[in-house]
């Protein structure tokens, strides 16, 4: 379990990173949200990557791929302006408890609420670090 302390005293978020405990349904959701994070993203850095890919596809004459990448950059832009963090959505799937209260609702709407709490309390760099460490530990070879 990864425990992250919030900015205020007593604030904690625990992330489940044990493959013996996390259900396959939640791991599957985590993977799907990571796919969205990798393919569209929600930050300026993600958008920059989309544009780099777009340029690469255009210079290689791969127009269908370039159009798809442009479409994905639109989705990324929408996420950015809506304040939705794709990485936060992925991490929300792994939350075991918030301030000691164990999470039992893993629906999409709960996931959106939880990702809001993560955005308030976990820095971007920390969220990247948690996602990477969990990916290494949980993804099957």
């Amino acid at each position: 379990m990864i425990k992250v302390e919030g900015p205020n005293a007593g604030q904690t978020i625990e992330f489940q990173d044990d493959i013996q405990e996390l259900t396959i349904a939640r791991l599957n959701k985590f993977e799907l949200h990571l796919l969205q994070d990798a393919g569209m993203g929600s930050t300026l850095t993600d958008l920059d990557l989309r544009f780099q890919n777009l340029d690469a596809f255009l210079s290689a004459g791969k127009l269908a791929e370039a159009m798809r990448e442009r479409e994905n950059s639109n989705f990324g832009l929408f996420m950015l302006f809506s304040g939705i963090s794709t990485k936060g959505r992925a991490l929300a799937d792994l939350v075991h408890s918030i301030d000691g209260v164990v999470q039992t609702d893993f629906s999409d709407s709960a996931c959106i609420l939880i990702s809001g709490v993560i955005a308030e309390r976990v820095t971007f760099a920390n969220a990247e670090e948690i996602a990477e460490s969990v990916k290494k530990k949980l993804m099957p070879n």
Partner: protein
Amino acid sequence: MQFYSEIMRRALLLCEEATQDVDNSELIAKIDKWFLDKAKPAIFDFENPENTIIHQEKQFKQLCAALEMRGINKPGELPAFDFYAVVQHLKSLNKPNAH
């Protein structure tokens, strides 16, 4: 697997350029072209029937349904480790020389 070996090869070529007086730009460009040829952006448009997320979700549900047909109760609720162990076991049973 080849994906990772190409990343490694590219990194080594860059290191070689940084530490020795060699020009690996042609080899690096070849690797970059290989990556570009393999690259296929995911489809997130929900109106597109090939939507990547829906496709993956369907595959997962189909796998769960197949496991339920083999008597596994609520496979989605299994810990990931147990789920993979069950899938691996059933795969080994399906091999022609398993019996």
